[in-house]
């Protein structure tokens, strides 16, 4: 009899939520009960809102997914679902809104296979694309890639096939394939999940790329902050070598290829390809002017093809199923699917993959389940520090590279942060700008100095010290920074400011004119006050205040000392009588 297969989502997020304990519990209980089951550690299943997540496949049946599996639920699943065959709590329905609208290409194997076992990848058509490619002429592979319409998923959206063709055309004895795994957008973690959950798809694609452009060496540039992804990638490389997919004379094709890992060291700007190349050469990760493009002069001065992780993860499926299949998915200009990391004030946070052309409304309200709690949707931020905030009026925008640009944001690497009424848009702009200042390499003046000045102007607004003429200055400076910065980081860093200023102009005005922050987020503009009529003198606020800014005897009305208050909001959240208000 076939065994029951139980899979545990063990990406970084799953492990952080305690999936290892659940796995241990299953292991112990099932061996005690002598229950024949195979326990598999997989990558992220995408249900971040319901970690720890597991899936159970009974022999001959479809897999069933369970969310929020704590110890109690785990025992329940063993006692009722496994032993008696009853339904239990916590089942995530496969036809539910979260899964219905999704279409998985890059994430197809994530959460389904054991990333540390190459056989599981091979059983799911792994390395078939490579076998097909080595029987084709490299030019034919490139024309397939061009016909598929695949564009770079790191944010820029440059046609992948064209990049390959350019690198192939460059004449050189040595060429390189580079996988950009320096994912640095705060709030985007798809590349990490792919490497943690399905590293072989990336390796296979790199080999195909090497074959097509005539390179014998590949390099993965990965953030040192991703220890789990690094270790799984190392294991995968080792296994691929053992099976003869890497090394000399791959599959008797007389083509040789191998891959090395290079580590990042915490610099967001290294996601920019010229900066990344300098970092791999052991230098400061500062970008240089393009042209020459890396396809002509890249790593060690040789032609180099740089592709992002998610882009690469699409490639084996394109080769296997044909470019027509891929081109039939998506919109006129953007083909295929896009992975998004859905987070913020949303019910179901998670890693999702949808066809291009899906609307923001479908993603946020159907897949994501809408806003958490009773608050109203305010905006969605896409594209990280290079993107912008989109208000309600853009909810029906179909998502592709062009539409997002038109709306004043961009695709970026796929972080999608949902904001509600409690979020101040000026503070949001400030938050992203601070990130860009932190991460600016300092090489060019517009980015190094311009962003700093821009930040100070925003700070004056959130401190209630700005005047209306500052708004025009902000716009002017933003345009200068965009036009004159050297690389993508500087050229896009004012986007969060411009998009919020454009769509939430009233909020900026309220901060300046009325010294009022609707979201009560700008500390300088809010004051906590106790309403005498409602205060019962219960002393809860007094006891919880971390800085002793509240005084009053038991049974008497309490008072908050505004000059000592650090605006932490603890008293506000602790008061049961709604006696504390924000002025």
């Amino acid at each position, binding site marked *: 009899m076939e065994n029951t297969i139980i899979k545990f989502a063990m990406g970084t*997020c799953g492990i952080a939520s305690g999936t290892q304990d659940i796995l241990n519990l299953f292991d112990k209980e099932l061996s005690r009960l002598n229950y024949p089951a195979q326990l598999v550690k997989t990558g992220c299943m995408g249900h971040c809102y319901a970690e720890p997540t597991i899936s159970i496949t009974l022999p001959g049946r479809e897999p069933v997914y369970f969310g929020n599996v704590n110890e109690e639920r785990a025992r329940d699943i063993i006692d009722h679902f496994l032993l008696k065959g009853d339904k239990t709590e916590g089942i995530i329905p496969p036809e539910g809104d979260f899964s219905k609208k999704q279409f998985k290409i890059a994430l197809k194997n994530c959460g389904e296979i054991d990333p540390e076992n190459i056989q599981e990848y091979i059983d799911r058509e792994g390395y078939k694309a490579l076998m097909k490619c080595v029987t084709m002429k490299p030019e034919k592979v490139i024309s397939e890639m061009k016909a598929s319409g695949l564009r770079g998923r790191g944010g820029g959206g440059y046609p992948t096939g064209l990049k390959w063709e350019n690198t192939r055309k460059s004449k050189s004895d040595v060429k390189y394939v580079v996988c950009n795994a320096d994912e640095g957008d705060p*709030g985007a*973690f798809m590349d990490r999940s792919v490497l943690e959950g399905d590293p072989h798809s990336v390796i296979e694609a790199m080999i195909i790329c090497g074959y097509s452009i005539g390179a014998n060496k590949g390099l993965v540039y990965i953030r040192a902050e991703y220890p789990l992804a690094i270790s799984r990638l190392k294991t995968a490389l080792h296994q691929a070598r053992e099976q003869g997919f890497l090394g000399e004379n791959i599959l008797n094709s007389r083509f040789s290829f191998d891959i090395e890992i290079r580590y990042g060291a915490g610099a967001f700007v290294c996601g920019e390809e010229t900066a990344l190349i300098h970092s791999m050469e052991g230098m400061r990760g500062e970008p240089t002017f393009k042209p020459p493009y890396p396809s002509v002069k890249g790593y060690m001065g040789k032609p180099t093809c740089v592709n992002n992780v998610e882009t690469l993860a699409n490639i084996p499926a394109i080769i296997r199923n044909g470019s027509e299949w891929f081109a039939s998915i998506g919109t006129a200009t953007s083909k295929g699917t896009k992975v998004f990391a859905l*987070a913020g*004030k949303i019910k179901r946070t*998670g890693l999702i993959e949808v066809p291009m052309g899906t609307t923001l409304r479908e993603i946020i309200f159907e897949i994501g389940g809408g806003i958490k709690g009773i608050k109203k949707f305010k905006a969605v931020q896409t594209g990280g520090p290079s993107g912008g905030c989109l208000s309600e009026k853009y909810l029906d925008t179909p998502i592709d590279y062009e539409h997002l640009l038109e709306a004043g944001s961009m695709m970026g690497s796929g972080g999608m*942060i949902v904001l509600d009424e409690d979020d101040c848009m000026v503070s949001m702009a400030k938050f992203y700008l601070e990130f860009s200042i932190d991460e600016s390499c300092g090489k060019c003046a517009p980015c190094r100095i311009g962003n700093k000045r821009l930040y100070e102007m925003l700070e004056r607004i959130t401190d209630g010290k700005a005047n209306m003429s500052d708004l025009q200055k902000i716009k002017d400076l933003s345009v200068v920074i965009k036009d004159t910065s050297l690389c993508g980081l500087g050229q896009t860093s004012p986007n969060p400011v411009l998009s919020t200023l454009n769509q939430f102009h009233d909020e900026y005005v309220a901060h300046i004119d009325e010294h009022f922050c609707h979201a009560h987020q700008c500390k300088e503009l809010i004051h906590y006050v106790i309403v005498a009529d409602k205060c019962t003198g219960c002393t809860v606020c007094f006891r919880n205040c971390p800085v002793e800014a509240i005084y009053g005897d038991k049974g008497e009305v309490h008072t908050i000392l505004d000059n000592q208050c*650090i605006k*932490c909001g603890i008293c506000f959240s602790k008061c049961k009588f709604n006696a504390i208000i924000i002025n």
Partner: protein
Amino acid sequence: MATLSENSRKFLVELCKKYRNDEHELINVLHEAQDELGYLPVEVQHVIAGELNIPDARVYGVVTFYSFFTMVPKGKFDISICMGTACYVKGSELILDEFKRRLKVKVGGTTEDGIFTLSTLRCVGACSLAPVVSIGSKVFGNVTPLQVKKIIDEYVEKAEELH
């Protein structure tokens, strides 16, 4: 300039040799050196520069460019507050303020007793648990300013046990 112990110097020389004394391997060398020695003071940089045959300034330039490298020793426990966007919109700034206030250090600073280093990081990928604080390999989710004291106390106790 403080002198480096003979063992540390030997380790660095061997380390550089492992990477063929190739200047392009500088970042890999620095990663391993920091893993072993904990931090990268100028003395360490000087030895590496000599072994790779590049100016000290180049090594210093690289060490200071990347946030992963540090020139000062870190505390026993590294408290990292996630400042990714998901955590930010769920109030991670208040958590950071509370840690700063209680530990009396700035971001990047180490407490006088050498127990804690306070740092921020961008996204550990546990966005559903936002706001998130990580200490070593342990991740605390849904943290509120009120829990900050409890977390600190827990680790002060651990530090005492280690003694």
